């Protein structure tokens, strides 16, 4: 039962992403800024930092599964989020081994993850759909507001999530290692 807590948390944020547009005032949506909630990615980064050990790769597995779910539910194109989230979380997991985890490192890693993921998604989509959005306007109109909004979200989560994740990590992963 306890093992289900982590996927359920991710599912909760996946569903809430669909209502994220309601949280923003309508005037912002009408303006030319595109703010994209990467809440699942933020939670996945936390999982990579606080839940996984150096030798376990649960975060990458969850990244692939929930990336696929986002593709399925919110877009028409399968594979883009799945590939991006898997890759980005793998990189984050690698970087985490090099740095000692504290608030600043966590935020830095979250920012790297969001920027890499959003840019990769933009590049992949512009290959497929020939979007007319140019680089300059993408960075100004989409990447920067998205980064700001998601870092804010990560900050809100910081007092709540890491403690819980470490608790689950100790009770779940240690036991499985012992077996």
């Amino acid at each position, binding site marked *: 039962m306890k093992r289900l807590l982590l996927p359920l948390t991710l*599912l*909760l944020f*996946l*569903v*809430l*992403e*669909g*209502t*994220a*547009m*309601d*949280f923003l*005032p*309508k005037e912002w*949506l*009408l303006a*030319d800024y*595109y*703010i*994209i*909630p990467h809440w699942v990615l933020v939670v996945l980064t936390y999982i990579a930092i606080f839940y996984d050990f150096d030798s376990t790769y649960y975060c990458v597995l969850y990244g692939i599964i929930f990336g696929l*779910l986002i593709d*399925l*539910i*919110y*877009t*028409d*194109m*399968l*594979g*883009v989020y*799945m*590939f991006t989230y*898997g*890759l980005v979380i793998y990189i984050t997991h690698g970087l985490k081994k090099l740095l000692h985890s504290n608030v600043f490192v966590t935020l830095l890693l979250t920012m790297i993850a969001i920027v890499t993921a959003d840019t990769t998604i*933009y590049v992949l*989509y512009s290959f*497929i*759909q020939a*979007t*007319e*959005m140019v680089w300059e306007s993408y960075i100004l109109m*989409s990447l920067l507001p998205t980064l700001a909004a998601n870092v804010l979200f990560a900050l809100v989560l910081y007092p709540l999530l890491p403690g819980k994740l470490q608790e689950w990590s100790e009770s779940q992963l240690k036991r499985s290692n012992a077996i």
Partner: protein
Amino acid sequence: MPSFFRNKRLILILISIILLVALIGFTMRDRDNLTWPEEFLQDTIGGVQTVFHTPVQFVTGIYDNIKDIRQTYEQNQMLKARVSEFKDLLIDVKQLKKDNEELRKLLDKQENMSDYEEIPATVIARSPEPRWFKQLTINKGKRHGVKANMAVITGDGLVGKIQSTSAVTSTVQLLSGFDRSNVIHGVILGGEDDKDQYGLIEAPDDKQKDALLLKKIPYEAKIEKGQTVVSSGMGGVFPKGLLIGKIEKVVIDEYGLTQTAYVEPAADLYDINHVSVVDRASYSPSLDEPPSTSKEEDSE
């Protein structure tokens, strides 16, 4: 030994890229139906979304409610003034409807392109990817009679069409997300010279984000700002007479042969909660099953 690991990693990345390309290739085709795993997952998550949507809607609605309450008095005054106008209009409409029906009976013509049935639905999620996928999820699906390509309207006008359906949820493509492969045949209702002009509604361009493009209007047509655009029913997909929007401005297209109009959508494409899915009554050869089954039964 390390080189082996490096190779393994390389192979893994190569495989995942191949998988990515294969999946994208599979989903990029114009598909009418989803595969069953997709349908199953969409319905399951749709159920969870329904549970969460109502409380979130309540919380985020509080701000709007306060704003509404502050404007109530002014609105009330204005609406009272307009109600009396509508009374006259209502009598006229009733009379015309009756006339229309009688005349139709006289002609023995039952089918009408503007007839449709409505399936009410509630929005349960909006795609968090607003750059490319302007999509909504609604809580009605195949089981309620929703099919792909049906028009979706709100009280104010057309907002989009059904893109794909599963058993109890469906995905709506908003007007602002239409691309070149799905255009609407629209008609500009006559202005001063009382002549209707036809054109094709396409997705908005990047310069003017909120306006739709109405393309391929004849060069000679005289169109003014403020004229109304409705669906023509000629495409066979949407019924006739669904309100699309108002003309904002008209320009000559890049080749100088036709005109392009910017249309401001009548419905608010950002604040959508309740919609109706429109099932047109008239038969369309390209979309419906041929209605020949009853005849065959008769002959047997």
